[in-house]
């Protein structure tokens, strides 16, 4: 057991899997000698060689398209998209190909690929319009694709290992701010966190906050901020966005009677809309208040200037304000 940063847990997961199974390889832009622009594959090139630590041409469709072929022929590729903002040239390969291969071949072919994509913005990220985007709503919409976004270092390692071993394509979203912000105990042993189950990070009774990734961090802070006001918020880490853990969500709402979803992506048709619809459909008679969403603004992406980025982002302060209103409702 060692305390480590989120990014180290990501690196460790890949390292252990590549050591464990020689079919596993990484490919992407700058993953080789440089070790990735964030350092997620630092040292891999020397350890595993060029064939398994493949610097690709600067072409995202190539990264995913080739990974699909590699997976068809017995490899287990981890494709790194340098910034989730650049994933869209690979959209067709992900959506029309990877996500449908099993279905369109009636189960005779699979597509065991993991696509890692650093996402997210905020004042600390300084990413501007094209190094800050959240993409989960776009891809969680796609049947046949699993979408995972861990918050803790423990989950980062365990879920990435589960993704690599998963027989289906997994989009693995890592919030850039979490890389060096979140630390936690990560066991040395070979464990996986299963794809699917959500987890209650903070039990509470007043209302339920559903979040994931960076916004879970903000939601937990907001929950602590309102404790002295007699508001006992339950905070649920969704972790896996697809498939979604319906039971944990409904159980929480049935306990607290009030629900709020927090996400950094644009509010309109964002992930929270699906969670809200689920609650409205399945737990309507448990509701003692409106289902609220606290989300990013409906502007194209996170602007660069600090003042604008701050205005865009949901923060613990903004979440706490909404929590107070929902609690008082």
């Amino acid at each position: 057991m060692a305390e480590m940063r989120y990014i180290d847990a990501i690196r460790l997961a890949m390292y252990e899997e590549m050591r464990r199974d020689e079919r596993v390889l990484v490919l992407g832009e700058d993953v080789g000698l440089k070790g990735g622009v964030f350092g997620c594959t630092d040292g891999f090139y020397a350890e595993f060689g060029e064939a398994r630590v493949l610097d690709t041409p600067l072409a995202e469709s190539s990264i995913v398209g080739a990974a699909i072929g590699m997976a068809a022929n017995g490899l287990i590729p981890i494709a790194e998209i340098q910034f989730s903002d650049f994933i869209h040239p690979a959209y067709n390969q992900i959506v029309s190909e990877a996500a449908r291969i099993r279905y369109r071949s009636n189960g005779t072919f699979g597509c065991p690929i993991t696509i890692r994509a650093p996402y997210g913005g905020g004042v600390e990220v300084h990413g501007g319009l094209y190094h800050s985007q959240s993409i989960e709503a776009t891809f969680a919409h796609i049947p046949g694709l699993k979408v995972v976004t861990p918050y803790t270092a423990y989950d980062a390692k365990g879920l990435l290992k589960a993704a690599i071993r998963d027989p289906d394509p997994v989009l693995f979203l890592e919030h850039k701010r979490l890389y060096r912000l979140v630390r936690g105990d990560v066991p040395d042993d070979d464990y996986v966190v299963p794809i699917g189950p959500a987890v209650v990070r903070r039990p509470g009774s007043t209302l339920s906050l559903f979040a994931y990734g960076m916004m879970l961090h903000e939601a937990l802070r907001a929950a602590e901020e309102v404790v002295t006001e007699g508001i006992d918020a339950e905070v649920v880490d969704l972790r896996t966005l697809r498939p979604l853990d319906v039971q944990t969500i409904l159980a929480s709402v049935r306990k607290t009677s009030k629900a709020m979803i927090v996400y950094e992506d644009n509010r309109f048709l964002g992930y929270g809309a699906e969670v809200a619809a689920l609650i409205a459909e399945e737990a309507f008679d448990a509701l003692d208040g409106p289902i609220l969403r606290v989300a990013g603004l409906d502007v194209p992406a996170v602007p660069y200037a600090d003042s604008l980025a701050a205005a865009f982002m949901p923060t613990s302060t903004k979440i706490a304000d909404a929590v107070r209103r929902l609690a008082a409702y």
Partner: protein
Amino acid sequence: MAVRDTRVQPARHDALGLGPSDLLDMYYYLALARAIDERMWVLQRAGLVPFVISGQGHEGAQVAVMWAIDRGRDWLVPYYRSLAACLVKGMTPRDLMLGLFAREGDPSSGGRQMPAHWAHAGHRIFTTSSPVATQYLHAVGIAYAARVRGTGEIAVTSIGEGSTSQGDWHEAMNLAGIHRLPVVFMVENNRFAISVPTRLQMATDGVAVRAPGYGFPGVSVDGSDVLEVYGAAREAVRRARTGEGPTLIECRVERLTAHSSEDRQEKYRQTSDIEAARSKDPLVVFKHYLEQIGLLDEARYTEIHGRIKDAVTDATDYAESRPAPDPATVTRHVFFEG
């Protein structure tokens, strides 16, 4: 007469290492593919199936390229005109007809895809989609895996000339060239992307000239000449197998039908052009060659076509008799089911 011709002109097939049984088998697949294709149009016009997309005119090139690979071990990443290639690779007439009728047991997709989206895991025919050119990158990935795993396999993929305008086509050429991957890139250039002629698709005279830009050779061959295509394919396979890298083979073929059953090619194609295309029908050309070398006499012709007719009738009757896919299976195979 055929015997005399053989004496006068040394047989081209001898130089390519093809024996009489190869030639007759190749002819069988060519004619079988044509017969199945024609039956598909009949079924569509009779209202028994809703849609057909055709490979007529392309069969010779496909059979020739597939004859050059190890059909058991190597990979085919096809496209929607690859009917003959899939037959050579191991799919049966029944397999193809099950796909056309979208019946239970369709090995390509279980009735989920439109016809002509062939796939067969057992025969290493990878599943394809309708967005064009994506398959080229898959073939590159398959070839990369073969290289890393040291299996000695190669991948063959094909595409129409219109689809070479897609970014994925260029990306695949680039990536394969960089790593000298064991892949054979086939382009079946029939001069029309549905209706758009090559002059509006590319500024170059054909696509073969592009290959050197990616660091490997491209050849342009007469797709109606089975032996010429085979010769190019044999060399391409050798290069792939020995680590020299990819080859682009542009097969100049004729599209003998409209793009699909939804298309009326008279709107954009001269009648004279359609008629002229008939003279480059690979089935006619190859039959003539076999007759010339004395391999195909009337008795053998009757025997082969009798087998083909039986196979097509059997496949049609079989597929038509199969039930539609169970509606309960609509939610199956979204994810791995263990």
